[in-house]
C-alpha cells in the first residue's frame, strides 16, 4: 500500500507540492488528474526518488517502508516503477542490454538469481509480442529515434518485464494512437490483481475508459483538491477543473 501524508516538496526555492495526502491500497488503480503545472509529475518523481526535488515535509511509505530515505534503485527493486512522461534517450545503450541490466540489477538487489541472456530474451520477446512491438526494437538504442508513441510503448514494455508492485504512469497515454492506447491499457489490466497497484496520471477520460480506476484524484496547485469514483473523471471531462478549484478555494 502506498501512503502519502502531508508531503511537501520544493525545486530550487519554489514549493511545488503543498501537502499531498493520498492512499493507494494494494490491488487498486487510482487516477490523478489536474491542470498543467499542478505538480503531477513532481509527485511522480518524488516517489521515484529524483534528487532534484527537496522533500521539506510529510511522509511517503510503501508497504510500511519509508520511501523518502531510499535510493531510486532501491525503490525500483522493492517494486516501484515510474513510466516517464518524457522517456529519456540513451545513445549507445541498446534496449535489450538496458532491460536485462535493469531486471538483473533489481533481482540482485532483492537477492534473487540473475536471468541469463536466453531466458531474458524469451521473456522480453513474449512481452513485446503482447504489446505489438517489432522485435528489432530490442536492438535499437534506448528511445533514440523512437516516435513519441514508440517511447511510451517502450515504457510499458519495461513495466511488463520488470513486473512492479506499484506502477506510476505519467501521461503514458499521451502520444499513443487509438490502437496503441488499447494495447497499453490491456498491458496494465493484465497486471491488475492483489499484488499490483497503480497511480495513473492522465489528462483524458479516454484512457480511463480502458483502465477503469478505483478512485480519481484531482491535483491542483500542489494539493489533492478532490477525490471520488470513476464518475469524477467524467465530470472533469465535461466541466474542466475550474469548478473543483473554485470550490476548494
Amino acid at each position: 500500500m502506498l501512503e502519502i501524508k502531508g508531503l511537501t516538496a520544493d525545486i530550487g526555492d519554489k514549493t511545488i507540492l503543498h501537502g499531498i495526502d493520498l492512499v493507494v491500497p494494494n490491488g487498486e488503480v487510482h487516477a490523478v488528474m489536474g491542470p498543467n503545472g499542478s505538480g503531477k509529475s513532481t509527485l511522480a518523481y518524488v516517489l521515484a526518488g529524483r534528487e532534484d526535488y527537496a522533500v521539506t515535509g510529510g511522509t511517503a511509505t510503501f508497504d510500511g517502508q519509508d520511501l523518502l530515505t531510499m535510493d531510486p534503485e532501491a525503490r525500483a527493486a522493492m517494486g516501484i516503477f515510474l513510466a516517464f512522461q518524457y522517456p529519456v534517450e540513451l545513445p549507445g545503450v541498446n534496449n535489450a542490454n538496458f532491460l536485462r541490466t535493469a531486471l538483473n540489477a533489481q533481482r540482485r538487489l532483492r537477492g534473487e538469481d540473475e536471468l541469463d541472456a536466453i531466458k531474458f530474451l524469451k521473456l522480453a520477446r513474449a512481452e513485446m509480442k503482447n504489446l505489438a512491438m517489432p522485435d528489432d526494437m530490442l536492438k535499437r538504442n534506448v528511445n533514440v529515434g523512437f516516435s513519441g508513441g514508440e517511447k511510451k510503448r517502450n515504457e510499458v514494455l519495461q513495466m511488463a518485464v520488470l513486473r512492479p508492485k506499484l506502477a506510476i504512469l505519467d501521461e503514458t497515454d499521451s502520444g499513443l494512437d487509438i490502437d496503441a492506447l488499447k494495447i497499453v491499457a490491456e498491458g496494465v489490466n493484465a497486471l491488475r490483481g492483489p499484488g499490483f497497484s497503480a497511480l495513473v496520471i492522465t489528462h483524458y477520460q479516454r484512457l480511463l475508459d480502458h483502465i477503469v480506476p478505483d478512485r480519481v484524484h484531482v491535483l491542483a496547485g500542489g494539493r489533492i483538491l478532490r477525490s471520488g469514483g470513476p464518475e469524477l473523471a467524467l465530470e472533469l471531462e465535461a466541466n474542466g477543473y475550474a469548478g473543483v478549484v473554485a470550490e476548494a478555494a
Partner: protein
Amino acid sequence: MSASVASSRAPATGGFLARFEGFRAQLPGDPDRRAQAADLFRANGLPGGLPGRRAEAWKYTSLRPVAEASFREPLTAIADCAGLLARLPNVGLPRLVFVDGRYRGDLSADGFPAGVSISTFARSPDFGALARPERENMVALNTMLAEDGVRISVADGVDGGTLMLVNLATEQSGRATAFHPRHSIRLASGARLSILEVSLGDGVYLHNPVTELVVAAGAHLSHVRLQDEARTAFHLSTLYADIAEGATYDSFALNLGARLARTEIHARLGGTGATVHLNGAQLLTGSQHADITTVVRHDAPGCASRQTIKNVLSGRSRGVFQGKIEVDRIAQKTDGYQMNQALLLSPDAEIDCKPELEIFADDVKCSHGATVGELDRDQLFYLRARGVPLAQARALLVRAFLTEALDAVTDETIRDALEAAVSRWWESEPL
C-alpha cells in the same frame, strides 16, 4: 652555477645526443640524414614547455618529465615475452612483433598473401620522404636514433588482408629505456590493407615511433591503434600519411595507457576525392596525460576529412585535442569535419581543445565542434529508477559514450578487441 644558467638557455635533449655519439657507427641507413637530424635535435631539443621551436604545437603538453628522466638503450631482449604476448588481443591475426623497438622474427608470423612484402628498417633502412625532422623535434630524435621498424608494401590491386603490428616493451630491471621505431607502410594503386597496431609493455620507457604511410590512388588502408602502454611509460608517436586520388586512410586510435602520450598525425590529401578518417578515443585516469594532435592538409579538390575524438577523463587526468585543417587554394569542394567530445568524471579532470582552420579555397564545407560535460543527470536518474545502482549506471553511460566512438571501427573482430581492452581497463579502474 654557470651550468644551471646554461641549461635554462640550451634546449633540453635528455641525454639522447650522448647516446647518438656513442652509437652512431652501428646505426643503419644514411649517416648524413642522421647527422642532419642530430644537428636539428641539438638546436631544437625536446619540444613542449622547454626551449625549442614550434612551442605552439606543444602548448598543452610538456615533455619536462622526459627531459628529466635518463633513458638508456634497451638491452637485447632474450625474454620470451610470454606475459606480454598473453595480453595481446586474441584475434587470430598474423602478427609482426617488435620487442623494445627491435623486430623479433621468432615471435612473428610469415606467409602473407602474394603481393604483400614485409621487411624491416634494420634490413633495408630507408628514411622515406614524408617525415619532417626540421619541424617536428620528436621526429628529429627518431631520425637520429632509429634502429628498426616494419616495412610493409602491398602491390597494385592486392588485398593484403588484416595483420597485427605489435610493439612490446619489456621491464628492464630498473633501467628506463628509449626506442624509436621507424615504420613504413605503402599501398600501391588499388591495394587494400587493414592493420591492428598494439603497443603495450611494462616498466619505464619512451616509445617514440615515426610512421610513414603512402596510400596510392584508389587504395584503402585501415589502421586501428590500441595504445595500452605501461602507466609509467611515455608514448610519443608521429605519423605521416600521404593519400592519393580516390584513396582512403581510415584510422582509429584508442589511448588507454602511458603516463604521458601524444598521438600526432599529419595527413595530406594529395589527389582528387581522397578521404581520411582520424577518429579516436582516450580513456584516462589518475594523472595520465594524453594528447591527440592532427594536421589535415587538403591539397586537392573534392577530398573529405572526418575526425571524431572522444575523451573520458577521471581523476586528475588531462586530455588534449589539437586539430588543424589546412585547405589549399585549389582544394575546392573540400569537406572537413572535426568533433571533440569530453566526458569529465571528476572535478579535477581537464580537457584542452584547440581547433584551427586555415582555408584558402572559397567553395569548402568545414566544421568543427566540441562538447564538454559531465554524465547526464536525466540519463542517470532514468537508469536508477529502473533499479540500476549509481556506480553501475555511471559505468554503463561511460561505456555507451565510448561505444559510440568505437562504432567508427567497422571491422567487428577489431572492434571487439578494442571493446575487450576497454573492459579490462574498466575492471582495473572502477569509476
